[in-house]
């Protein structure tokens, strides 16, 4: 997680107009964000780094593939980057379609620096958070998979709120054995408290067969 945060977020800027693209790139770079410029939307779709952390800035009006088509393409491919749309003439209809296709923000050109930079930073924060949540989920799932059959059974009963004694009765084990399973569980799942255990693993227990 630390290695992810240490990297500065990368903004993908897609606009066919070179002077506009360069000016926007310069503006974005003044707040310490890295910018990768793309002149051709198709080129961008084929080549951009999906693992990168950051956001995408898309111009709506481009020759060839339109910004909206690119947005729909990204959505279909499951790309999780927040997308900020830029347009010269924002009609209500265009705006509606953009948000429906999953745009994070919709800004009119010429764009105010504060607005654009705020939107970008918010988008980057959201992306980082979503990635963190995603990796936390991933870790929890790996730990849950390492449990034995008996331990999962005990975990389910703990989450249901039963005491050690009650658990022993339910699955005909001595309370001492239950106690030792419980200690193993907390250790294996790296749970500092019962609350943490319930918050992170209740969903996994319910989903398990």
């Amino acid at each position, binding site marked *: 997680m630390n290695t992810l945060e240490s990297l500065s977020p990368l903004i993908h800027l897609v606009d066919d*107009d070179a*002077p*506009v693209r360069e*000016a926007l790139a310069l503006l974005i770079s003044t707040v310490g964000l890295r910018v990768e410029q793309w002149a051709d939307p198709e080129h961008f779709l084929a080549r951009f780094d999906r693992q990168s952390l950051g956001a995408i800035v898309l111009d709506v009006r481009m020759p060839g593939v339109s910004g909206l088509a690119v947005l729909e393409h990204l959505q279909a491919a499951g790309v999780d980057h927040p997308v900020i749309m830029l347009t010269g*003439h924002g009609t209500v209809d265009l705006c509606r379609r953009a948000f429906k296709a999953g745009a994070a923000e919709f800004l009119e*050109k*010429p764009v105010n620096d504060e607005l654009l930079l705020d939107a970008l930073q918010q988008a980057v924060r959201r992306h980082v958070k979503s990635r963190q949540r995603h990796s936390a989920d991933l870790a929890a799932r790996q730990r849950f998979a390492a449990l034995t059959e008996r331990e999962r059974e005990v975990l389910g009963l703990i989450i249901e709120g039963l005491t050690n004694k009650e658990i022993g009765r339910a699955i005909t084990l001595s309370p001492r054995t239950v106690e030792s399973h419980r200690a193993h569980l907390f250790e294996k799942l790296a749970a500092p408290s019962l609350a943490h255990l319930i918050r992170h693993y209740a969903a996994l227990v319910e989903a398990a067969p």
Partner: protein
Amino acid sequence: MRALAAPWPWARISRRQRRLAWLTVWLSGLLAGSAWLLTQSMERALNAFETDARIAHRLLSQRAVQHEAVLATLSLMQPRVDERLPAIYPQFLHMWRRSGTQAWPGAPALSAALEAANQVKGRPQLAWAELAGGRFWISMAPAEGLGPQSAAYALEVSLPLMVPWADWPFGQTAEAPAARHTRVWLQHGQSRWDIHAGDAGPDLRRFVFRKHLAAASQPFDLVAERRYGLDDLPWLALGLWALGWSAGLGALATARRQSGARKRAEELLRLGQVSRLNALGELAAGLAHELNQPLTAILANTQATVRLLEEEPPDLHQAQDAMAKTATQARRAADVVARLRRVIERPNAAGGVPVDLAGVAHSVLQLLEPECRRHNVHTQLNVEDVARVMGDPVALEQIIHNLVINALTALDQVTDRQRNLWVSVSAGATPATVRLSVRDNGPGVAKELLDRLFEPFVSGRPGGLGLGLSLCETLAAEMGGHLHMRPATPGAEFVLDMPTATDAREMNAS
């Protein structure tokens, strides 16, 4: 925007087909009408002829029966030969009598014939007929039971005197074709006697009447023939029909063509307006994009520069670079504006031709007449006898068109009084100008718009582009004219002052 009317079916077929269709309709109508008139005329002629022939037959039959009655009376009364009989009945040339075993006097052939006729008792008999000579003899044997000394009688009848000319139906008016074309005769075997001859000539139809006289003793056929010739045709009626039909159809065709042409003209005009608006919309959209791009770059660059200069230490190199790029983008925006100006400017606007301003006003009003009617506006055109103006007829038309349309739109808000529109062409304030005025009694122009009325994109109408008046003013100025507004109470008056065409220029132009 109103949808364009679908082209009417006539418009789809070619001019030549249309002409052929009209010709077919004209010809078939002409033929059908003529045929009807002809049939009527023939039927009338036939009816008249049959009536006349029947009357003639009846008259002659009555005479024949009368002859039999006279003969029967003589046979019964047995008088001596009485010379007074022909005086009473002029058709009897002679009265003959033969008593007992006497022989009939006269030529042997005739007396033999009379003798033969007497072989039949009790009924008058035809003895001898000389139809070509216009006479015949009828005779009757003595009645039975009167004794051997009783006499037989015979009458010599003259055909010309037998015809009752006073009551004769044919030839009452000898000049009429009905009289001239009718031939009437009596026929007995091969011989005949013409009552009247009739003239010869080609005939379209021939009616024939033939009937036995209603007296057995005079077995003659009355034959009548009616020739229906060329001069019997109803020439006057035919001529009038041809004339009337052609004139009526011609008027219809002209009306149709005119309304078609008018419809086309209106549609073209509307199309022109639509396409002008579309072009304008395209231009505006393109312009917005073309200007937006450099403005975006300029804004981003300057804002980036501000941030670069705020850094500690300021990044002068990058800031300088950004400012250079800003200058380039500002020039790009200026180029867009210059290009737009070149597109909009019309070349050669200064030239002009002498134009009859009143004529242009008249044609515009005529063109917009359906529009006026639709808006329920009463229109009045007043024209003074003024000189022609120097200008571009198309531009003048467009100015007047715009002013009238504006007035019509303004008048839509009037509900409490008659909607009036006055257009006038009169002498201007100075001798070298002509003034056109378009005045309405609508709500007038809002106070806050008065000063900016002729600026582009200023409109008093919701959704209006605000280009109409500004365009009019530009067009007027280009022709050396002047367009301004005078408030009227109520309403608004737009006044166009145009320079007159001087004689020298007019002569050059013509």
